């Protein structure tokens, strides 16, 4: 029975979204959730929901890290924050994975403070999960991009490690035996992108455990060429931000166009399926959360604007990752290749 700690106080809709999500998960039976946060607020909220207490624990934490706080200072000052308490539960073995919707910087800093890195990992990677157009029937409609901002720079060594970690995660979660790994780059050739990327290209192609498909350029990112795209934190953060902003921009353009005249409105309604597809690109409710890879325990980072449905999915993914032994698989992939 996997136990997932949920930081109830992180995110824009905290703690209501987390409480509703945990209540819903408890009815499915089979995943124990530990709601971490202000017990005096969580309990009455839980009692408003249909839930099964046999699968819910509440761990009191008197503090929380706010979205508008300086993450470094807040993490140092709030040792009893819900995030820190959730991670302490993971360190103590009382939780197998952690889910939270706090700000990525605060989450990464707190993870680094409480969790040990896996052997062979020099720096953790923050992932972004995004919807893409599959290339063949049965291909997972979701792809993984890492690093999406844990560190600004990465050398060739880091990129190889990201590929191993991302490949192990995607292999277990998507059930793809050999996920296709691509390197985000500005051109198709092995020498494109400068010294670091050329070196990374050479080494990725040489590792037997990695199903390397070459460089992935910007226009290929949303296609099915690669299941896992590796890049440095700076480019990854920019790419993830662009994907996230796409649907918003398209939605705005469509709304403005619809106001112009009835012909445009008619045309847009005919394209509604396409807009739905575009919205799917950033529908974080459908995939729940993005994993932070490289630590001894898995952290599923949900979007700060996550609804209860998104957190439910994040908890399910976290539980699946525990059952499928994702962390152990990452550790073993790293030890084989590095």
């Amino acid at each position, binding site marked *: 029975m996997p136990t997932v700690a949920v930081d109830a106080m992180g995110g824009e809709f905290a703690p209501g979204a987390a409480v509703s999500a945990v209540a819903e998960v408890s009815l499915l039976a089979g995943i124990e959730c530990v709601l971490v946060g202000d*017990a005096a607020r969580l*309990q*009455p909220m839980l*009692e408003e929901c249909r839930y099964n*207490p*046999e699968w*819910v624990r509440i761990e009191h934490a008197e503090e929380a890290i706010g979205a508008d706080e300086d993450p470094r200072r807040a993490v140092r000052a709030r040792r009893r924050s819900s995030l820190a308490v959730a991670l302490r539960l993971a360190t103590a073995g*009382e939780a197998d994975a952690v889910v939270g919707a706090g700000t990525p910087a605060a989450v990464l800093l707190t993870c680094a403070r409480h969790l040990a890195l896996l052997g062979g990992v020099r720096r953790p990677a923050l992932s972004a999960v995004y919807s893409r157009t599959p290339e063949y029937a049965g291909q997972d409609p979701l792809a993984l991009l890492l690093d999406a901002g844990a560190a600004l720079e990465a050398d060739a060594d880091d990129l190889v490690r990201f590929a191993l970690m991302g490949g192990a995660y995607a292999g277990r979660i998507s059930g793809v035996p050999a996920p296709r790994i691509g390197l985000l780059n500005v051109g198709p050739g092995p020498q494109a992108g400068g010294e670091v990327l050329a070196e990374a290209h050479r080494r990725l192609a040489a590792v037997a455990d990695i199903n390397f498909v070459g460089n992935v350029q910007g226009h290929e990112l949303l296609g099915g060429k690669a299941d896992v795209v590796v890049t440095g934190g700076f480019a990854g953060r920019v790419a993830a931000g662009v994907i996230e902003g796409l649907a918003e921009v398209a939605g705005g353009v469509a709304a403005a166009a619809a106001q112009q005249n009835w012909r445009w409105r008619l045309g847009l309604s005919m394209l509604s399926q396409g807009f739905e597809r575009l919205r799917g690109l950033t529908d974080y409710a459908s995939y729940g959360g993005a994993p932070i890879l490289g630590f001894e325990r898995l952290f599923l980072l949900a979007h700060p604007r996550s609804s209860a449905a998104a957190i439910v999915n994040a908890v399910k993914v976290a539980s699946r990752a525990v059952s499928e032994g994702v962390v152990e698989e990452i550790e073993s992939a790293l030890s084989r290749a590095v």
Partner: protein
Amino acid sequence: MAAWLRAEGGPREAAPPRVVFRWDLDKTYLKSEFESLRGLVKISLEKAEDKVAAPGVTVLLRSLRRVAEQSGRDVRVYFLTGSPPQIAGAIERKLQMDGIVYDGIVFKDQLQQLMRGKFRHLREQVGYKVTELLKARREEPEGAREYLFGDDWESDPLAYSLYADTVAGRLSPEDLEGLLGALRVDPALVGRVRGLAAGMPRAEAVARIFINLERRTAPARLRPFGPRLVPTFNYFQTAACLFAEGMLGAADVAAVARSLRDDSDYAPARLANSLADLQRRGHIDGSAALSLRAGLREDGLLVAARTTARERFAAWGTRLLARTGGAKGPGALGRGLTRLLAPPSPPAPAPAAVVDYRALVAQQEAGE
């Protein structure tokens, strides 16, 4: 008089009042599926061997009778069901198979309603249950204390609460008549209920109403019924509450927990979470939970979670108390420690002096 009693060797202790346990059957004692027509047909054709009791309920029911008898109390166990008498044979056989000793069982005569063409009243439960409860109450001696057990599928919370407040005198026969009328209960039955209520000696008879949350109804929805009504998610929670009420011993709660573990795959973590939930909802206080936890952990029935210094001290106090058993010396110290070091309980919900039945009836009629 006092002097005479002393001359006779001290005042004679009054016999403890009778304790009555009234149980609903489907979804409370039995895991029945009456939410579909298919389920209803299945129930009526089922043999005793096919009927399944809710996890832990048989151990709980047997323990309640045994503990009451051992403490010298006169005890009665009754069943009140909305099922028709045609299935009586299977039910009685099932209870016999489960080793349940009971003193009576009332079935709903659906056939009579059918003959009268009262199809709407076939599924009506509030009027039927209040009538039968009031009738049954007349048979009880003065001072009999009742524990009622139902579920969240139909209208047990409302029917049981109406009955409890009518007997207690908080609800007049006229008010009860009005409420049943609003619920569109068979007028013939309403008149009968009014007559029964009018002749009822007033007594605070109902100690607790336990509602088995089989549908997982949000507990907050049952809060308007007041603290007398305890919604529980499994019979381990019910047993823990009854332990806090003094109706069961810690070993009996452990027996219920063991049956859940052995027969229904309840892991120790699920039991620990259930107990913590009950405590957080204010239905069991800190010291009762603490003493239960210590024993259950020793039996391996609860997960051995991290304990605080306060809990370790209190557990030590409990052990000391159990070993010495005395009121003086180390025993008293143990008891004092247990009490002092127990974690602070959440404040008990304020007793609802008056249940707002008009709102509850309106809710029920709106199908909420």
